[in-house]
């Protein structure tokens, strides 16, 4: 049965997509974990739903492109907007983000009943990786390459910013620009994972891998590369497992990654709660 499946082009594309999305998002989960930014990502992911409805409203139909562009626009608008609002220092970025994303979400919910495409929208909420087409694969590949390259080029100033923005600024790092860059990269990664795991579950892919690795090592670079490898392996395993157990692929991927996190939390040699003598 497995061999049959492996020759199935839908399944092949799903595996390729899982590998690429899993790696890129696993890599970026390093930034999310370092910034203790999981809730922000959650907010951004929820923003993609009103983005998709906006895309449908403007384009008149739910297509790959309208959904992608709508989601990207909304995530960027809310993400970068929150950085801009927090500039004044009066409003914390988390506060700004909460206000902006709930407002966007509310707008999406208000528009939704007036659209004809409510059924198909479910794909975008929870993902449908088996429906990934060749074009989608190329889009995923393109976004993944772009975001990974950019992140690697700027990883030092980004890390300095994440660790201590004041020390970074005193070293001449353009801290504000790095924050905009980071949010842009996160928004792009979220949108790239839309097809695989959907709006709601995309957070799992963008947090769990590095959260798991952070329980296993104190070396910063390993968070990124380890997160990428774990994300890719977990996603591929999720797709295969979902076929074997006849479950939906997106949720299975997230469950696998969540399960690995729980294992690390319990048994990590240094930080595991069940390991005696841990520090």
């Amino acid at each position, binding site marked *: 049965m497995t061999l049959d499946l492996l020759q199935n082009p839908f399944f092949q594309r799903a595996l390729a997509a899982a590998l690429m999305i899993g790696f890129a998002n696993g890599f970026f989960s390093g930034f999310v974990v370092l910034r203790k930014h999981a809730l922000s990502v959650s907010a951004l992911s929820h923003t993609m739903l009103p983005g998709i409805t906006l895309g449908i409203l403007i384009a008149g139909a739910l297509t790959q492109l309208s959904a992608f562009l709508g989601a990207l626009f909304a995530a960027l608008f809310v993400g970068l907007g929150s950085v801009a609002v927090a500039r004044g220092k009066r409003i914390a970025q988390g506060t700004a983000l909460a206000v902006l994303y709930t407002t966007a979400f509310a707008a999406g919910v208000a528009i939704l009943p007036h659209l004809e495409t409510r059924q198909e929208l479910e794909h975008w909420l929870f993902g449908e990786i088996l429906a990934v087409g060749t074009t989608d694969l190329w889009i995923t590949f393109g976004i993944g390459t772009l975001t990974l390259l950019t992140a690697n*080029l700027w990883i030092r100033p980004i*890390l300095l910013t994440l660790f*201590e923005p*004041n*020390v970074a600024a005193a*070293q001449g790092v353009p801290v504000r620009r790095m924050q905009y860059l980071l949010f842009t990269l996160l928004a792009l990664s979220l949108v790239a994972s839309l097809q695989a795991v959907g709006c709601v579950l995309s957070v799992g892919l963008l947090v769990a891998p590095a959260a798991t690795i952070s329980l296993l090592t104190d070396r*910063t670079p390993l*968070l990124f590369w380890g997160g990428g490898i774990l994300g890719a392996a977990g996603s591929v395993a999720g797709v295969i497992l979902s076929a074997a157990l006849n479950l939906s692929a997106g949720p299975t991927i997230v469950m696998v990654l969540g399960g690995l996190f729980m294992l690390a939390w319990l048994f990590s040699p240094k930080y595991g709660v069940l390991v005696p003598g841990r520090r």
Partner: protein
Amino acid sequence: MSEPHHSCCEHHDHHHELVVQGLRVSYRNTVALKDINFATSCGNRVALIGANGAGKSTLIKAIAGLVPRSRGSIHWRGTTVRRWSREFAYLPQREEVDWSFPITVRGLVEMGRYPQVGWWKRFSRTDDESVESALETLDLKDLQNRQIRELSGGQQQRAFLARAIAQEAHVLLLDEPFTGLDRRAAGQLGELLAQLAHEGRLIIASHHDLGSAPRLFDEALLLATHQVAFGAVEHTLTTAQLETCFAP
């Protein structure tokens, strides 16, 4: 301790001077700091002394380029410091740092080299050597693979100093470095700052303990949102001036 690997005064007849003129910092309509005028040079340890809210941290941050200066200028070694200088290192208050950040002591010190190495280039042998040497100078060699939360308060302070030294900073701007340290750690840090100053660095630190100031610093700047006095520590910390500074 190892031999000093870097000194800013070794090859110069004159001392490098830091000159602050007419400095003012305001947040919207509130003046946080005004009329700051002083000049000092490398080799000195300068204490910024004043009550809470007197502007100690603000002055440190203004020199580091972290808060915009609304008026005045800063000159270092004869050139105007527009916003920040690579030769300045800012060491934040310990409570401002996220110690749970997954980074080792060595990783933290390596961060100090990033501006020298550039955003893209690999670490050269020189870079590795400065990291090694900074770790050695601050006696952190054995702790280099520890996560930074696993250090004591004094060791954490030393890790940031090592980072500043790896950065080859000449001016160290420290925000309340002695706060929260026990006597022994405070004593060690005091010796360390003396050594770093002796090697030719300029140390500027906010400090709230008047009792220990004469022992730990050469010069003092008394602050009460404006400059009350500046000079050698024993002349500056007089009863009359302290009364102006700490008057309710």
